[in-house]
């Protein structure tokens, strides 16, 4: 980061202006937004994420029907534009006559919620553990790092399957299982940043003023380690949504009547030849959300962390 400071110094040989706070320089937020909004992919990602979030919030008002309502005589109705489809069920109906569009809209609610909870769980746990490891150092650090090594060498989906089997099949247990599996990512990230910050002059200065360990770790160091955490949290959303959907697909996620995309996909699999829309649309939704979060995460990384800029 010292390179940035040097490049700001006037090259003409005149004395640098006295430091006057941040008055002259663009605010951090503005600088971030200019860099972020120049990236069209990131803006697209943000727009799609925003759209899905809106759909999730307004699901009960947007959905034409109740997601669990069974429409008699409308089993496996194809989408409106196919032969035999009707405008009453734009994306068709499933094998027991539930409106697919309504189920997908309510599914957005579940998937966005799942992503949020996976990230909230793994981020808070991972940041706390990573901060402890990086700040404490010594044998505590070594022990924590070995534990993350162990977790990262176990195939993630297998670990999640075992955790769900222990806790019982349920959406909330699937969230915990997937959250546990991604904790090591946050631990390593935070630890690495803490190690980089620990020796910096501001930390040493603060210690000389008598700052305690808690103040050093949480108030001084942590805020300076957050940029990569924000990026990882965004990417964690896509990981979380994807893995919980995968568990749903394996029959270990949300229980059947719930309109969860992975579970819907698993149910629709039996009708792949006769009613392919039951497979196509839930998968497209998963792909769109995951892609959008990945785009957003890439854009955030480029904007927040100039060192990683490609």
């Amino acid at each position: 980061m010292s390179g940035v400071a040097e490049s700001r110094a006037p090259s003409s040989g005149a004395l640098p202006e006295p430091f006057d706070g941040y008055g002259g320089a663009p605010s951090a937020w503005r600088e971030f937004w200019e860099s972020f909004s120049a990236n069209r992919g990131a803006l697209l990602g943000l727009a799609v994420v925003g759209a899905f979030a809106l759909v999730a919030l307004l699901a009960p008002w947007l959905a034409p029907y109740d997601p669990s309502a069974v429409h008699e005589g409308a089993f496996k109705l194809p989408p409106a534009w196919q032969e035999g489809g009707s405008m009453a069920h734009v994306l068709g109906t499933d094998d027991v006559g539930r409106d697919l569009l309504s189920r997908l809209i309510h599914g957005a609610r579940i998937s966005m919620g799942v992503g949020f909870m996976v990230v909230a769980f793994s981020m808070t746990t991972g940041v706390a553990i990573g901060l402890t490891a990086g700040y404490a150092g010594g044998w505590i650090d070594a022990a924590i790092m070995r534990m993350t090594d162990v977790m990262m060498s176990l195939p993630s989906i297998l670990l999640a399957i075992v955790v769900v089997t222990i806790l019982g099949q349920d959406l909330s247990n699937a969230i915990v299982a997937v959250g546990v599996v991604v904790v090591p990512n946050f631990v390593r990230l935070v630890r690495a940043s803490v190690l980089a910050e620990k020796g910096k002059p501001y930390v040493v200065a603060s210690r000389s003023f008598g700052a305690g360990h808690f103040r050093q770790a949480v108030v001084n160091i942590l805020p300076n380690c957050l940029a990569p955490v924000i990026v990882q949290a965004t990417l964690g959303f896509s990981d979380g949504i994807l893995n919980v959907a995968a568990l749903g697909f394996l029959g270990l996620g949300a229980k059947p009547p719930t309109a969860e995309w992975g579970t819907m996909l698993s149910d629709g699999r039996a009708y792949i030849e006769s009613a392919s829309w039951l497979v196509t649309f839930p998968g497209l939704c998963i792909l769109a959300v995951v892609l959008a979060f990945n785009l957003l995460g890439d854009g955030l990384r480029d904007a927040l962390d100039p060192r990683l800029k490609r």
Partner: protein
Amino acid sequence: MLAFLVRRLFVVIPTLVGVSLVAFALIRLVPGDPVLLLIGERGASPEVYEQMKAAYGLDKSLPTQYGLFMRSAVAGDLGQSIHSGRGVLEEFADRFPATLELGFVALFFAVLFGLPMGIVAAVKRNSVFDYAFMSVSLVGYSMPIFWWGLILILFFSVQLGWTPVSGRIGIVYDVPAWSGFLLVDVWKAGEGWAGFWSAVRHLLLPATALGTIPLAAIARMTRSSMLEVLGEDYMRTARAKGVSRAGVIVVHGLRNALVPVVTVIGLLAGHIVTGAVLTETIFSWPGIGRWLVASVAARDYPVVQGGILLIASAVILINTMVDLAYAWANPKMRLQS
């Protein structure tokens, strides 16, 4: 280099012990009694139940059970499957080649397409190719492979009828296991091109599904690594010396750009194992992924703890080899960590 190797070993061994502890502990936390599952809730007298429990060593205390597990594991014995009665190692060896074959072909597919895509995208930066290939790899990177597998089946198997839906080879072929790799064994069994082609057709879709995310990762890594190398001074020097543009890119550029790419390929091994669980489920592929999922459901303790230990060891082994290769290629790495 030797010092680096020794340091790495000091990390690998505790990790392996940790993996064995986790594998041992996790499966015992799963509710359900394996002996009861085996003999059924009714129909077993308490004496038979106790006898069965003792036969599998499940009547001993947990530390003793772990000690026994580790002692025989070090000697190469991972116990017997409660379900089939066969040795865990034996069952693993039966299925591992199927997963390995699928993984190899998937990785081959990923490199075959991902590498050229990345190179072209970097060389023709900001061209139509660059945007197209990078969009493809971005979509590929976000792909839910359990859905992608189904879409491939829907299109190529159901609508076009080009490829079979599941299994490793047509049922008309009787191929005794020799190496475990069907692409090899068909020749030994004298099935010739017809058998080989059948095995290839069975591999096409699962390998594509499993290889998609690695393909995307390789294409992205190749592009960024190539872009970095293209800006180096030695590239310009080589051009100035009169080497052709293509020659510079292949000889001077690619060779140096490939170091991080090879690392990424090595690290994708772990991903392949994870992806195999889903891919094998979709395509009814008789590999270790499906076997382990079924064993968790059946509470087959020895299989799950042994299988997890074996898979994790394989992943750790591959990652360590990648680290060593990287340290060998890049002396800076040896001094760090």
